[in-house]
Each structure stands twice: as structure tokens, then as C-alpha cells.
């Protein structure tokens, strides 16, 4: 008995085609695209949904002590994720939070710079940096390998205003993130605005 029941239902299906389910599917897909893409702009989405969506670009790691808590607060509010989390037309790539890749671009000879990996991966991130390396990089743009970042790409001139303890807090939080290998992508030359780009114009 119990084996027959499904067979009966299958036989009935083609006779009474249900138009509701494909429409619901289409509706759901449209809604998903709507929610996950940036093309509608955020001002016509409910603010709560925008917040939920963009919050995904911030790492979810739970802080383990006071320092990491302060660090998480600062890394979140100072908008490090704005540049350091990759982003495209589907919105922020939350599975790559703070792993770098966003393009920062100007209309002029400064051209394009890529934000780098902030997770403690020793090769592509800041895993080998000491606390003082980090403080130097954040405050004066000078990396351990001796190269200096442009201040309008990585805004170290503003970050130089952070106190030493606030920098330490950020470092301790970033070092608590799960390390991820994230090879550096290449800057694009020439006029090719893309939606993974943060575009400064004059």
C-alpha cells in the first residue's frame, strides 16, 4: 500500500499543471538577484537588508580578549573592509573578508592600486609581520620589505592618528583571523571601470 501512493501522485501531476511553482521560483530568483546584486542601489532596499548584506564583508571571528574586542571594533568601524574585502556586482565577497582584492582607482596618474591581504597568512598576508612592523606600515606606509604605499590608496596618513594601543588592538585582532592565501591580482591599466572598483574622481 504505502509504496503505491507516490505512483498515484506522479500519474496525476501532468494532468493538472501547477503554474504557481515556476512563478514562485522565478520570483525567488529575481528576489535573490535583487538582494545579492548591487544594481538596484541600496537606497531602495530596506536599510536592515543593506546592513545585513554589507555586514557580511566584516570577518565574524569572535574576539577572545579586550584587545581583540577593541581591535574588532576599530577594524569594523574604520571601514578597513571597504577596501580590503573584494567586491563585485553581487556585492561583497563575504567568503573573502579582509583578504584584499578591491581596486582603488583615480582618474589621474595615480591609476589603480589593489588592497592587500590582511589575514595572517605568512606568504600573501601579514603573518610574518611583527606588531611593530604593523604599526610602522599603518602609520607611515612603510612595509617591512621597504616599499612605501601611496597614502591615498592605503590611507596611512589618516591612520597615523591612531594611538599606539589602538594599533596594537587592530594587529591582535587581525592576527586572530583565520589565515587565507590570497595571491595578489594585477592592477588594470587604462579606462576600464568595473564594479569591483572604488573609483575616486575629481
Amino acid at each position, binding site marked *: 500500500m504505502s509504496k503505491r501512493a507516490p505512483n498515484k501522485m506522479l500519474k496525476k501531476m501532468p494532468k493538472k499543471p501547477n503554474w504557481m511553482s515556476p512563478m514562485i521560483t522565478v520570483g525567488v530568483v529575481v528576489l535573490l538577484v535583487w538582494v545579492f*546584486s*548591487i*544594481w538596484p*542601489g*541600496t*537606497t531602495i532596499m530596506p*536599510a536592515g537588508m*543593506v*546592513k545585513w548584506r*554589507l*555586514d557580511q564583508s566584516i570577518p565574524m571571528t569572535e574576539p577572545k580578549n*579586550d*584587545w581583540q574586542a*577593541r581591535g574588532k*571594533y576599530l577594524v*569594523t*568601524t*574604520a*571601514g578597513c*573592509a571597504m577596501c580590503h574585502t573584494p567586491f563585485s*556586482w553581487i556585492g561583497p565577497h563575504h567568503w573573502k573578508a579582509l583578504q584584499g582584492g578591491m581596486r582603488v582607482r*583615480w*582618474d*589621474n*596618474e*595615480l591609476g589603480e592600486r589593489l588592497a592587500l591581504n590582511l589575514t595572517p597568512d605568512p606568504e600573501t598576508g601579514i603573518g610574518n609581520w611583527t*606588531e*611593530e612592523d604593523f*604599526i*610602522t606600515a599603518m*602609520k*607611515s*606606509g*612603510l612595509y617591512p620589505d*621597504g616599499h*612605501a604605499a601611496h*597614502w*591615498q590608496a592605503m*590611507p*596611512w*596618513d*589618516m*591612520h*597615523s*592618528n591612531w*594611538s*599606539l*594601543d*589602538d594599533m*596594537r*588592538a587592530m594587529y591582535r585582532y587581525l592576527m586572530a583571523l583565520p589565515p587565507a592565501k590570497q595571491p595578489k591580482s594585477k592592477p588594470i591599466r587604462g*579606462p*576600464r*571601470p*568595473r*564594479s569591483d572598483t572604488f*573609483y*575616486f*574622481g*575629481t
Partner: protein
Amino acid sequence: MIYTVMALMGAGFSVVAHAASGKEIYAQHCARCHGDTGRGDGPAHTMQRPWPRDFTTGQYKFRSTPIGTLPMLQDVERTIANGIPRTSMSGYRKWLSAEEIRRVAEYTMDFSKASGVPDGAGQSVSVPGDLDAATPTASAVSTASPTSLNRSALTERLARGKKAYTKNCAVCHGNDGRGLGELAGQMRDTNGFLTNPVDLTDALGYGGGSNPSDIYRTLTTGIAGSPMPRFDAVLDDETRGDVAVYVASLQVAPAERTLVSREAWNKALPSRERGEYMTRAMSCALCHNAYDKSGEYYSEPYMAGGVAITIPGLGVFPTRNITSHPEDGLADWTEAQIARTITTGYAPDRRIEAFSMPWVYFSHLTDEDSKDIAAYVKKLTPIQNKVPMRVYEPIWKRIWGRLRQLVGLELGRLEYPPLSVGDRFMQTKGKSAGSEQRDE
């Protein structure tokens, strides 16, 4: 043999092909902050606090010579090698050899000669030799064996130092040395910028060195151009030594440090000053300061807006003038409205596009911090600068652009009249900058 020497010198770094001159080193490493002419006006100086030193005045903070005189070459070399880590001035010991540091120090000191400051350093002050004999950290005092140092003498010395410290230094540096004394948040340096007493418990915070002998020297010669007084006349040599030893004993290793509690911080600093700290460090000006044609932002007009932030395929979002200018700025906004705008995206007249100004990140600010920021923004000097409103691409273009991008085609940029706010500002600079505007 010669290769060994070279390998040792270049340890870990690319071996310099020829010995660079002071000028070359300066141009490569220092000019971005200190400027080609040494005036402290390099392209990156704008938002740094304190400003990079203006070498043409011949005024140096960290000297072994009396205030008002030029420093010794060694003083400048020491600063360049160790840096002033609490500021953007990093130590170059890692990147430059001793010889290179000497050359660039000489080059640096030539700037004041060229601008007519009389040549010749003052006389180095003498520093008692026994100060560094035992590094009197708190743990050293409790664990020191009686043979290695005279424990009771040191304890007495620390007690005397503490007494003099409480009397002379605690108003600014606080009783615990964390820089949150009564006068914190009320002092300005010679450029007119807020400058706070240094957190003495942090060895990295000392620009002039953190050993007792260094502190002794700093107390004796003073810090030129800062509100920190010099104590050569106020305290006798012996007491200065005591204070130096006591101050050094306050230092805590980075791993054992604790954070200043938010309550202590909120209590010590006025709301506007806390807001200034957060606003500067959180990079509001990265977007809200105008850029010139070469792409560098202006120190003036500060926060007057006008950068066209483009989200390809979505629209162009010029940053707003957030100074309190009556027509162009936020003069009619209340602090609560500003705080609400940055933390919820709801401006009084519209909603902010979250991809242009990332209010979602600011929404994590504590109420206290967002109020402080609003209090600071509200008091920005009004600057006249009308910024056109944002423009969204029509919805079909947004979808069309998306489809083009999916198949790898370029996204066109929305036609938008160039803002060139900078140029406009430069023409009217005399009229619009600063306080005159207030009187109109």
C-alpha cells in the same frame, strides 16, 4: 673579504649599487612627508598629526642641547634611526645604514642653514652616567638581588621620583602615567593642533628614547614647539634623575599592557577632542576632502567635499560638504541628525547610498563615539563649496551594464560634469577659507 662586508651591510636588503647621497636618500624616503624644500609640506603631510617637522625653522624636539639651539648631528641621527613611533615618523635603522643616516641627517640640517638660522649646535647637556645602570622596571625592583643593585636605595629613589612626578607631571600625564591628566585634550602645538601628553607606560611612545638617561635629557632640554615644559630650572639635577628613573619604572612591556578603559578616556578628554581623534583616524577626510588635478588632496578646504565617487554601473556620488557652511554645508543639521546619518544612512532629506559612504561600518560605532564624531563635525570651520547632488544611472542602464560586464565588456562611465572643486576653490580661496566666513 669585501663580499662578506657587503653581505653583512646589506643583510636582508638589496645591496645599494652606489652609496646614495643625502639628497637622494631624502628624495626617496623623506620628501613625501617633509617636502622637497624641507618645509614639512610634502604631498602626504595634510592629514598627519603632528605635522612632519619643518626643518627650515631649525626647531627640533629631541636634542641634547638647550632649548632654542640647534641639535647635535648625533641627536638627529638618533631620531632618524629610532623614529618617533607614536607619530608617522618611522625609524629608518632597518632600511638605511649608519653611514646613510649620517648623510641624510646632514642634508636635513642644511635646510635651516639655507633659511638663515645661525649655524652651530649648542653645548650638549651632561647626563649623569649612573642612570641606566639598572633598568628599574617594577619587576627588577622586586626581584633584584641585593648584590646586583642596592635595592633600598633604588626604592627610596623611586619614592622621591614619584613624589616629584605627582607634583609636576601628573596634571598632564596623569597619576598612572597614561597621559590622561586634567589638562589632557586642552593643549595645542605650534601648528595649532591638538597634542596629548604621551602615555609614559609605553616604551614605544617615547620619541627621545625611553631609558632613564634619555628621559633625563628630555626633561632637561625640553621639547621645542610642544606644551611639555622643560624642567631644568624647576627641578634640580638630582630630582630630575629621580623622576627619570621613576618614569622609566612605569613602562610596561607590550605583551603585558592593558587598554585604557573607555570610561577613563571619556572622562579625561572633552567630547569634541574625542570626536577629532575618531574622525581623523577613521579617514572621513579620505572621501570628504577635495582632490586636485594631480590627484592629491588639499589640506584646505578641509571636509568641504567634492570627490566624485563612482560606482561603475550604479552612478556618481559626489562627497558632500560637511562643514557647517550655511548654504553649502550642514549648518542647519543638529548633531543628532549627523550621528543618525552616519550610523543609519538616513539623512534628513534622503537615504545615503551605502556603496558610496559605507554607513554600515559606521553603524557599529558606539553611541558615545558617533555623538563625539557628530560634535566634532558640527564644529568644522565653514567653507563655501557647493557640491552637486548624486546621479544614479537609469535602471535599464544598470541592468544593461551588468549584462555587458557578465560577458566581459567594459562598463561605460556615467557622463557627469567634472567637479573640479579644487580649481574653483583655489580661485576663491581668499574669500572662502576660514573664519571670515563666520562673520558674513
